[in-house]
């Protein structure tokens, strides 16, 4: 485990002020980087979203601590994906507040700004750049100055190459670096997307069904990875695979019909009659 952690390169990357200082047009960064002094990285309060009368989220409140690994479970339609959409700016909440740290109001920001503020997301269906090579996928997602001007004249520095190589090893795709990503297996695509997320060096990772379509072996390695990431990053994992959740979870939140039904350690959740009724019991 320890050896793995080292190879993962999950030491918090040295801050590279040049990047942040240059990204002057991102509001989140301009008006102050997220402030995590109170130990909370994500704070949702009273969030409601409805689509044509369908209440997808109903006064949802949730707080994630810095460095926490939180699993979110719940039956289909419980609002898990919608919640991620709200956090990442894809869907606007009808009411309620969403803060990243103490001070960054997510509801005011675009997807791009939220991503730059330090929230990374993995989709339910792996979304990678299918026509790019694995290497290029990682290159594009790497934390860097992401403005047009820089992109036009960008050249990969050697330390950047090293970081990509490192991640390639971590996600076990170093042999496939120059392969077109669209040709990877489903599990490999999942890993590539996780790798891309890591290249972004986000403070908060949102992972929507990360182990769907993975073999047992791959699932096990993913579990190890997530556990090792926790502490340095904060993770929110939505997953249906209960064994996987049980393997990694410290705290589990159960969503039902758009709001939090119960929250606590996995074993307690598994024995909670309300949870059993809506979800586990079925």
């Amino acid at each position, binding site marked *: 485990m320890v050896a793995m952690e080292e190879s993962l390169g999950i030491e918090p990357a040295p801050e590279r002020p040049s990047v942040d200082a240059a990204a002057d047009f991102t509001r989140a960064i301009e008006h102050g980087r997220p402030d995590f002094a109170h130990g909370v990285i994500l704070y949702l309060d009273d969030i409601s979203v409805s689509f*044509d009368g369908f209440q*997808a989220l109903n006064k949802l409140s949730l707080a994630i601590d810095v460095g926490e690994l939180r699993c979110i479970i719940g039956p289909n339609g419980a609002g898990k994906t*919608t919640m991620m959409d709200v956090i990442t700016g*894809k869907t606007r909440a009808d009411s309620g507040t969403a803060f990243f740290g103490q001070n960054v109001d997510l509801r005011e920001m675009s997807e791009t700004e939220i991503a730059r503020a330090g929230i990374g997301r993995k989709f339910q269906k792996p979304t990678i750049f299918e026509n790019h090579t694995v290497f290029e996928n990682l290159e594009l997602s790497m934390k860097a100055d992401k403005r047009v001007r820089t992109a036009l004249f960008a050249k990969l520095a050697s330390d950047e190459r090293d970081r990509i190589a490192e991640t390639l090893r971590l996600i076990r795709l170093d042999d496939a670096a120059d392969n077109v990503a669209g040709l990877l297996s489903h599990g490999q695509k999942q890993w590539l997307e996780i790798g891309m997320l890591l290249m972004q060096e986000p403070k908060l990772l949102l992972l929507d069904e990360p182990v769907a379509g993975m073999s047992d072996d791959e699932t096990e390695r993913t579990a190890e990875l997530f556990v090792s990431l926790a502490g340095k990053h904060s993770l929110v994992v939505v997953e249906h695979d209960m064994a996987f959740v049980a393997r990694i979870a410290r705290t589990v939140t159960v969503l039902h019909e758009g709001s939090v039904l119960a929250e606590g350690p996995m074993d307690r959740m598994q024995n909670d009659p309300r949870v059993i009724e809506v979800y586990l019991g079925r």
Partner: protein
Amino acid sequence: MRTLLIALWLFASGAHALEAAIVEKLAFGESDEQVAAIAALVAAGDEKAAAVLQALAEGELQTAGKSVLIVKGEEATDAVTGAKVAPLPAEREDVIANNRLRRELAGALAGLKLISPQREIRLAAAKELAGGADAAMLPLVKKALEKETDAELKSMLGQIAAAMELKDGSKEARIAAIRMLGGSNNPNTKMLLLSVLEKGKDGSFAEPDEEVRRDAQASLRAVEGRLAWGERLGILFTSISLGSILLLAALGLAITYGLMGVINMAHGELIMVGAYTTYAVQNLFRAHAPGAFDWYLACAVPAAFVVPAAVGMLLERSVIRWLYGRPLETLLATWGISLVLIQTVRTIFGAQNVQVENPGFMSGGIEILVGVVLPWSRIVIVLFAAAVLTGIWLLLTRTRLGLFVRGVTQNRAMASCVGVPTPRVDTWAFGLGCGIAGLAGCALSQIGNVGPDLGQSYIVDSFMVVVLGGVGQLAGTVYAALGLGFANKLLEAWQGAVLAKIAVLVFIIMFIQKRPQGLFALKGRAVEG
């Protein structure tokens, strides 16, 4: 001159029979006497008098000794008695009308037409006089007014009389005339009333009496108000008319693009195919059943649906089917189809525009105000659009095909799982959309030329309607079509057709900024992607 005429009129006004003396003066008298005689005949105002004047104008009035004859070819009648004169006297002389006489004659004949038994002739004469009449006609007009029974003509004549009074009448007569004009809805009366209020160069009013002017002001306001309403009604109708044409053109797209998501750039050409089908059916009727020509639309409407629908189904099977899910490719391929269709039609029917004739019942129109005519053809198209809309609505909501189409639209995989034959539904739905395009073409053929480029001019407009209305919503399409019709026509009245069109396009582009999903989009749960 004028006083003389009036004097003569007074002298002759009692005479109802055609007096021999007058006719003789006309035939044998000096120039002045002849003019007086014409006036007297006009004042007599009956048919015999009209016949004499007509004969004089056409050079058919001749004299034989003392008698005056109207000679038509080999037949002659006595101008005074109207009795037949046979045999034709050998010694005859033409009554020559000099230029001055001809001028008098022309006015007189126009006046006499006012009392013609035929309504159309009276109407035409009244319209001519409404443009501006000689004061000498006033008695005649008044007389005609008394006799007139037709309401429309009566009001026209009343106006003409009032206009004449304004020029020469007493103060009371002028005020009465002005009040009378206040009830008019003819644009000419506005000019007339304005002329009363005009100031001369020296600052004095054309109308010296202030009371009369005040009345004129009031009447002017009344007329202007009514004219404005007429104009508004006209714009309202042309807007609805344009809106219903846009609706017809866009309804097919609302199905193929709106419901099925197929971007069919050949839609305009299917409209064109529908128009040419109508043209072909019309030709068949003209050649084989000219008696039933008025009924050709009864055949043309179904044909204009079936032919484009068949073309559409063929296209769906052969080309579009393979491009589902690749909208940009579909766009290009269907554009190619449109080019092929255009050239095919050019090869068959020629590159020139062809003329489709309206059936009898669609020509003419209702004149709601002077100058505001609602053509029957446009009224029929508005009704037709409403009927097609109702038909589609019923088809989509009340039939199995409609149920299938909606099902496939909302969830293809699920529809397929529950046994809906999705490929066949696609073909039928696409055919339906194309058939409706054909119906639009049939309607368009009734109000304009039909040419191979017909479709090109509608494709941008119909896509704008669907885009503005929102995808997947018939109601949106209807509102968007009517809205665009109104916007176009209102702006057109204000800034001209081209700028109106540009303004509308710019508006749509701006609108899409605010509501990319159109007016009536369903807000869906965000889909992964």
